[in-house]
């Protein structure tokens, strides 16, 4: 199979205006991916499918990624010569900027005909709120149908050209996108037998704090000391 660089260059020559770049995966898997231009997404996908040397005829997996707004601190170093003739000083200038977040759709492509793959392609939306449209690749690979519906359901990416874009897992009236990192799930932890961490904080809100027992230091959560156990066991679900 051609390397990712070769594929990128061939896409660049075939679609001169398209932005195509390689996203490096620094992990051990080193599964690098191609970030393709979402405006020409459908055409590039068709090229990957129909090109003689590539023939990616099978999309095994499509998923979404949510990237929140990122705060980036730029450090600009300038060397200021010392007026008194001493060694030059290095002055650091820090500027903060916010890189807007975006949503990403990731597709894993294989070729059944040539028995190679995977090649991972990604497309990015403009932002996370009002510019969340990407071209649907379901007309290119039929297997993307449910997976794109799931991405639409859980991440809120709108796939233009999808034959039947409805929510897949949640009900139609549901408004949220639960896989987004800023999703707040409903607070229905009224009863938790062993709460901890964030759930403990939520569970506490449902129960009044008991009056402190005089003379007994709070041994902290998780203690089974009988001194602080409630005298009468409350009724528990059978």
């Amino acid at each position, binding site marked *: 199979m051609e390397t990712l660089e070769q594929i990128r260059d061939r896409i660049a020559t075939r679609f001169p205006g398209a932005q195509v770049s390689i996203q490096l995966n620094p992990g051990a898997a080193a599964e690098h991916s191609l970030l393709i231009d979402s405006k020409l997404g459908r055409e590039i996908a068709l090229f990957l499918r129909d090109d003689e040397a590539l023939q990616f005829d099978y999309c095994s997996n499509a998923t979404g990624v949510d990237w929140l707004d990122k705060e980036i601190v730029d450090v600009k170093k300038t060397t200021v010569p010392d007026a008194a003739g001493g060694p030059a000083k290095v002055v650091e200038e820090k500027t903060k900027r916010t890189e807007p977040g975006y949503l990403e759709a990731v597709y894993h492509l294989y070729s059944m005909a040539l028995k190679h793959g995977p090649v991972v392609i990604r497309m990015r939306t403009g932002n996370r709120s009002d510019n969340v449209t990407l071209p649907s690749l379901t007309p290119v690979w039929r297997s993307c149908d449910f997976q794109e519906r799931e991405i639409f359901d859980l991440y809120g990416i709108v796939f233009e050209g999808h034959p039947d874009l409805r929510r897949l*897992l*949640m*009900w*139609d*009236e*549901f*408004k*949220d996108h*639960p896989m987004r990192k800023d*999703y707040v*799930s*409903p607070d*229905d*932890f*009224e*009863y*938790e037998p062993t709460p901890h961490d964030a*759930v403990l904080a939520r*569970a*506490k809100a*449902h*129960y009044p*704090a*008991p009056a*402190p027992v005089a003379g007994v230091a*709070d041994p902290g*959560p998780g203690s089974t000391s009988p001194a*602080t156990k*409630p005298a009468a066991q*409350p*009724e*528990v*679900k*059978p």
Partner: protein
Amino acid sequence: MSDAPSTPSPAAQPLDESRRSSPSEGGNAPTPFPAAGNISDAEREELRRNGILLTSLEELYNWGRANSIWPLQFGLACCAIEMIAAATARFDIARFGAEIFRPSPRQADLMIVSGTVTKKMAPNVVRLWNQMPEPKYCIAMGACAISGGPFKQGYNVLKGIDRFIPVDIYIPGCPPRPEALLNGLIELQKKIQTEKVAGPQAAKHLRSDVQSEFPVPTYGEHDIIPTKNPDVWSPPSLPRKA
């Protein structure tokens, strides 16, 4: 019932035994059975071995109901696989008269909530329960149906079917083995056999003051509405450390 007097098989005994020794009857001395006057258990058993059966309408009625509990044929998740296994020849739920899984709620006596109840599914489960005629019973099978189980902290899973409908038997496990389901079924049979046909303690399907249909939650924008039925379920008041 007809062959019971002529075949003194031990299998026929647990019915009488369990009824007598059930804790709700209380006391050490067994209360004489109403129809049997002052005849003791031993005398009654002796009569039964000789082909004379003494019974009451209540006992006969409950015996019939307890041994023909038809479950509703539906499953929700992995627990349903164990329920299916319980219906196969190896475990054979037919031994307890519950092998006829009915495809229609109108014909079913028992709802086995076998598996994860997602919030999307919850209104449909409650609707099915409302469509079942009385007398009806509910078994919550597995951790998911009891409390949400491994998915308790999920945004999309109902934290126990008892938030919407009353549950008679809880079977813990993830999943419970088929034997556990059969044990739950036997416990339900015991429960049915102690039900009364008349009086203030009568079984709920014989009383008009007991609710048998429950409000079906609707799909909301962030969660199902309401998230629980306060008439059926309220959280236990666990005192917590501040």
